[in-house]
């Protein structure tokens, strides 16, 4: 029993000593996830997302003032972005992400309502996230309800004003009848024939007006009366996207980023540990050649994996592919290139393979929270949101979603931003490797 305890204690002391001698690793393991959660907690905005809304309306429309008043007073969820008569430019602004909603008010809205028909207001959004699309649809219906409410309110006010004029007309008619009765009672009929004629005409006119208004009111469709405006909400994506389909591009990107980062993060630290770097230092091998060779090999490997994952997603899970395969391949290539750069940087900073793996996992966790994988970046506040743009996955997810689900071509701004980060990382990794090869071996 005593020997058993001694043997067990050998491992207790050995394992503890080994663990405690890796302080940076333990700090990363313990503090890393906490740091990510802390940043997420600071950056997360729990309130409903305000929607930047642009209205399409003719400059001379009767509704212009009303729409502007409604839009400005609807609440914090609507950010009024102005009124434009050009629907084409409004849709372009929507596609480019400058606005979140475009509300097209029909030119002849009032006439349509007067003609006893509902005026249809088209609301366009560019959401492909089913949850965001639901939110926008809900918001749109709330907006139309509010518009109807306000319109009804204003119409009621107008009707009340008209009712008082009708009341005046009824009062005038009554006065005319009283006058007529008085004249008849006094027997001076002959004397005031022309006056009496005028009184009767006036009475008839007032009654005709009243009759016309009552007829119009009677003919009014109750639905049009209660909801004069009807909202039709349309997404810019050509298809109805299911949640699983929406997440597919993000899963592809996150998987590829993680694989590329993990493999690259082990590549140089392993050479360092095995002693091959010492051979490289004596050989004519240059740092650029070594790095370029490593990049190319992992690009080939990553590209093959990407093809397999894509085939599984498209053929197995039947996720739609709306865009061009050339654009898809280009985005995957640049994502892999940038992720490899990140991995090589980790590899040049880490001292052990375990540290490299840990950093790669840390990056994966950060990407899950901050790349827009499961939470729309618009729910993150600055400066935490800026952190997201340091992650290749943030760009990759957006680009691939656009290509696969929206069917658009490569969005050049995020594409070149991603490429720029990749080139920057290549240069830094090259410089670090060059320094490493020139540094004294220890």
């Amino acid at each position, binding site marked *: 029993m005593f020997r058993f305890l001694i043997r067990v204690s050998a491992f207790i002391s050995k394992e503890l000593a080994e663990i405690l001698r890796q302080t940076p690793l333990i700090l990363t393991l313990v503090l890393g996830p906490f740091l990510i959660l802390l940043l997420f907690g600071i950056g997360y905005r729990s309130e409903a997302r305000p929607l930047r809304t642009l209205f399409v309306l003719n400059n001379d429309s009767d509704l212009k003032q009303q729409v502007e008043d409604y839009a400005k007073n609807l609440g914090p969820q609507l950010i009024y972005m102005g009124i434009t008569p050009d629907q084409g430019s409004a849709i372009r602004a929507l596609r480019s992400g400058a606005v979140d909603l475009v509300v097209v008010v029909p030119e002849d809205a009032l006439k349509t309502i007067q003609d006893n028909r509902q005026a249809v207001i088209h609301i366009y959004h560019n959401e492909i996230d089913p949850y965001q699309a639901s939110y926008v649809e809900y918001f749109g219906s709330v907006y139309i309800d509010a518009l109807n409410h306000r319109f009804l309110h204003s119409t009621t006010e107008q009707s009340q004003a008209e009712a008082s004029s009708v009341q005046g007309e009824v009062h005038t008619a009554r006065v005319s009848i009283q006058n007529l009765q008085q004249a008849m009672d006094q027997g001076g009929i002959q004397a005031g024939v022309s006056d009496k004629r005028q009184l009767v005409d006036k009475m008839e006119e007032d009654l005709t007006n009243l009759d016309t208004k009552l007829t119009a009111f009677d003919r009014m469709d109750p639905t049009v009366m209660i909801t004069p405006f009807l909202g039709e909400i349309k997404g810019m994506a050509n298809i109805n996207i299911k949640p699983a389909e929406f997440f597919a591009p993000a899963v592809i990107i996150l998987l590829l980023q993680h694989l590329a980062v993990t493999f690259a993060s082990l590549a140089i630290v392993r050479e360092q540990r095995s*002693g091959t770097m010492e*051979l*490289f230092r004596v050989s004519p091998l240059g740092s650029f050649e070594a790095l370029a060779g490593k990049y190319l090999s992992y690009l080939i490997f990553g590209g093959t994996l990407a093809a397999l994952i894509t085939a599984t997603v498209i053929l197995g899970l039947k996720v739609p592919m709306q865009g061009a395969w050339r654009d898809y391949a280009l985005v995957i290539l640049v994502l892999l290139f940038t992720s490899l750069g990140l991995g090589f940087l980790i590899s040049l900073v880490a001292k052990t393979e375990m540290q490299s793996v840990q950093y790669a996992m840390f990056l994966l966790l950060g990407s899950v929270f901050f790349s827009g994988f499961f939470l729309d970046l618009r729910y993150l506040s600055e400066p935490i949101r800026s952190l997201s743009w340091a992650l290749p996955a943030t760009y990759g997810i957006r680009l691939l979603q656009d290509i696969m689900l929206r069917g658009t071509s490569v969005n050049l701004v995020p594409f070149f931003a991603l490429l720029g980060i990749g080139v920057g990382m290549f240069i830094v990794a090259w410089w670090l490797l060059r320094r490493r090869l020139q540094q004294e*071996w*220890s």
Partner: protein
Amino acid sequence: MAHNDPMIWGKDLTKTIGTQAIVKGVNFDIPRGLIFGFVGPSGCGKTTTIRLLTGIYRPSGGEVRVMGKLPTKFTRRDREKIGYMPQHFALYPDLTVRENLNFAASIYGVGLGRRARIKQLMQFTDLFEHQWKLARHISGGMQRRLSLAATLIHRPELLFLDEPTAGVDPILRQKFWDYFAQLRLNGTTLFITTQYVAEAVNCDLVGLMVEGNLLAVDTPAGLRRSAFGGEVVVLKTQDTIESTQIAMIDQLPFVRAKTKRTDENEIHVVVDEASTAIPALVEWCTKQHLPVDSYQEYLSPFDDVFVTLIKKQSKDM
């Protein structure tokens, strides 16, 4: 670099890591086309010296030139002329023997004739049969052979081999040395470190390193002479050699040190040169009516040579 210039030259070469001096004012002058054996116990500074000569380390003091250049300023072309085999296996365990050699050939830019060269080296190192095995699955000795083959792949002019025979069986070790001799014949200069002092006999020049100091640099014979004061002749007589006779031998003009009795009729005589001293000794014995049974030059094991040299050095210090 002129042909007569030394291949490796160093003056007061020093390397300090942290506060510890690893190499202490070492001087080298190694001509091209020979085997330089760098011998010394583990931890004496052999590997550090090789790293200084290959440009991995910058000297803390002194000067060094390899192929007429500062090792830290080697160009790619200079590096293509150098082969370096580190002390530990530094290839890829998850690649096969052939793949490792292909990789080594690639980093040295070997293009034409690569297949033939790889085959030749695998045959030389007895790895041809194992060419498809992963490096992790071959024995330690095979891994040393693989490292050597990878070092030779680009036919370097100057070879730095850090303990190439460590962990290699004696038969293959001798084969290694035979191949090194063949390389030397082809004009290659070899700088070889070893803990096996007996291997010094295979070298043209031997440097003895102890605790960062280069105690001696000489030919193997020269080192023997330094250790014992000259060459040693073993003289065996039929009769007992008297003490008075030993004292008389010590007085002979070609005797360099006190004669040592190893048996009642056997003595070790330290002389200038064995080839001339032996006939003179035999003649002296004849005159003394001391019948000679046998005589020969005694080649002491290098272990003894080095132990003696180290002891002498310690006494001097």
